[in-house]
């Protein structure tokens, strides 16, 4: 595992080309991410979220860090544990709450639920359930950059440790490797695929070792260490846009909840939860900031701000109406004008 150089937070930030505000923004985005998902649980218990509900608890640091290392022109194809990507890119939380509750204000206007969101204005492609079907899509985005010779543009595709066993992963990564496309593959290794442990999903030390079969590099980082993730992603992005081909970045975390609300994760050893609770990415980031000169007061203010912000956002979401049933069957096919002016 690539280890984080021991350095003061300030030196570390300098090394990464980040300033204090960047770091605070990342921290804030992690707090917002967790806040959204925690409120999601409450909404679910209140019966306000239909269907099922799941979160990316434990992965906030990695998701936010990856997104922070991207540029606005990069397309991102995040998956089910990557709410932090949407938050970092600026998808307003009220729209996420609205999505959860099936309201018109959500990015899918009630047509899809949970974290099945995206916003092409923010260059985030909405995921589908079938995993990891969006990975070849990201490769196609990268291919189009290459065709158009867009110099500083990179696509990002996510996959889980488990979903990397699917054919879509293989075909997508292989095509990208063969054509040295500007794409970075993020592997959320949260140690479980639903109830299935890593050793039943892959036969290598790290799931990202699959990269070796494509002749590309993989880098394993501590996914609870946002700075480490940021560093690895930035390097991989630089390499990709310079024509060096794709990299797989594996962010190791533990999925800190069940697969979804109905799953109590009885199969995860309790000690593991305890161990990884101590490595909480938000606490880690907080410690980093405090050590780097952010005061307890300032921290308090940030956290309070996030809380208030989410309360507002939730109110706004609750005010978003249910979709009009008469629209249920419309918009199955796009009309030519929409190519120039898509909904999102």
């Amino acid at each position, binding site marked *: 595992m690539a280890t984080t150089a021991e350095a003061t937070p300030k030196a570390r930030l300098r090394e990464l080309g980040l300033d204090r505000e960047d770091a605070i923004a990342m921290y804030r985005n992690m707090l917002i991410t967790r806040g959204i998902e925690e409120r999601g649980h409450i909404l679910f218990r209140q019966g306000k979220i239909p269907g099922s509900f799941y979160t990316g608890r434990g992965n906030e640091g990695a998701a936010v860090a990856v997104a922070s290392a991207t540029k606005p022109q990069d397309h991102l194809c995040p998956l089910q544990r990557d709410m932090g990507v949407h938050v970092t890119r600026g998808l307003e939380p009220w729209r996420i709450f609205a999505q959860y509750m099936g309201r018109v204000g959500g990015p899918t206007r009630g*047509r899809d639920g949970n974290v099945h969101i995206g916003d092409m204005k923010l260059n985030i492609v909405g995921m589908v359930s079938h995993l990891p079907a969006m990975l070849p899509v990201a490769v196609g985005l990268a291919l189009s950059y290459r065709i158009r010779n867009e110099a500083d543009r990179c696509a990002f595709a996510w996959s889980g440790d488990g979903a990397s066993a699917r054919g879509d992963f293989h075909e997508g990564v292989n095509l990208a490797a063969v054509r040295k496309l500007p794409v970075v593959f993020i592997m959320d290794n949260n140690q479980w695929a639903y109830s299935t442990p890593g050793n039943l999903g892959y036969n290598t030390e790290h799931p990202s070792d699959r990269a070796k079969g494509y002749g590309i590099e993989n880098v394993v980082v501590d996914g609870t260490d946002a700075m480490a993730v940021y560093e690895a992603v930035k390097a991989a992005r630089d390499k990709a846009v310079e024509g060096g081909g794709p990299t797989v970045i594996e962010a190791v975390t533990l999925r800190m909840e069940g697969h979804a609300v109905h799953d109590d994760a009885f199969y995860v050893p309790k000690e593991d939860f305890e161990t990884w609770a101590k490595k909480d990415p938000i606490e880690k980031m907080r410690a980093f900031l405090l050590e780097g000169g952010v005061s307890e007061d300032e921290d308090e203010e940030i956290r309070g701000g996030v809380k208030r912000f989410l309360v507002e956002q939730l109110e706004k979401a609750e005010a978003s109406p249910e979709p009009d049933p008469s629209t249920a*069957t419309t918009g199955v096919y796009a009309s030519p004008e929409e190519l120039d002016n898509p909904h999102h």
Partner: protein
Amino acid sequence: MAQMTYLQAISDGLREEMRRDENVFLIGEDIGNFGGAFKVTQGFQKEFGEWRVIDSPLSETAIVGACTGAALAGMRPVAEMQFADFVSCAWDHLTTVSAKQYYRMGTPIPMTVRLPCGGGFSGGPFHSQMYDGYFAHVPGLKVVLPATPEDAKGMMIEAIRDPNPVLFFEHKHLYRRIKGEVPEGLYTVPFGKARIAREGADVTIIAWSAMVHVAMEAAEQLASEGIDAEVLDMRTISPLDFEAIATSVTKTSKALVLYEDTRTGGFGGEISARIAEELFETLDAPVRRVATADCPIPFAPVLEREVLPQTADVVEAIRELSAY
């Protein structure tokens, strides 16, 4: 006889046949220690061991491909798709290899794919689909869809014993909502024999899977209006018991096909076509279809309700049919 939920009946059928025939094994995602996303195989790994209840990687093609191979080796594999929707990831294998191998090579492929299917609970576009019509279109595959606990158990056992690839559609919405008497021990319900769920004289409702229950509700409502509907539970659509349809429609002269797949291209169209083609002279009114609208299944309850067939839609259609 024991009272069982539809889900328990499926488990029971699986368990009994696994006890009887050691060639039966299960493979799927999270079916072992976890007991499956819907807990159909809860406790199975304890009873039958890790090599008869196999937690696979997240690989639908590997799962069904391995079943084809195991079937060729004399096993009786049963695959679980975590949701029927994910069978799209194994579409190629099922239609290209499993379905055609017997016709080409003369080697039977006795395998079963379990497919928790259907909508009605805000599963959204990828956890709600009814995939039956796609597969009923494929020569070489059987498509079976029990509506009751008793059928669920008997058809499960029949599916495992059938020498062909069988797609066993278990409707998620019935799992825990539908209870009924289920015989103990081993028994089978043959494929290709419809069940008259309700006798009636005025109009025939042709349905399968969860839609049988919608049809029954509609029939009850219509009874109070003096319309006496016959409800046919097809049980399987490949093979299709067209004889049962012909008998009923010859009696009632009017037919409604009710199905949960999307309207256009769904298997109800095929049935409607055959009725009109083969029973042209008995029909007193055009065949009606009530089905899911031609769009993905939306997530929000208000939208999903609009898209999926509702009892009121059936009642309305039957009223019109009666008045024709």
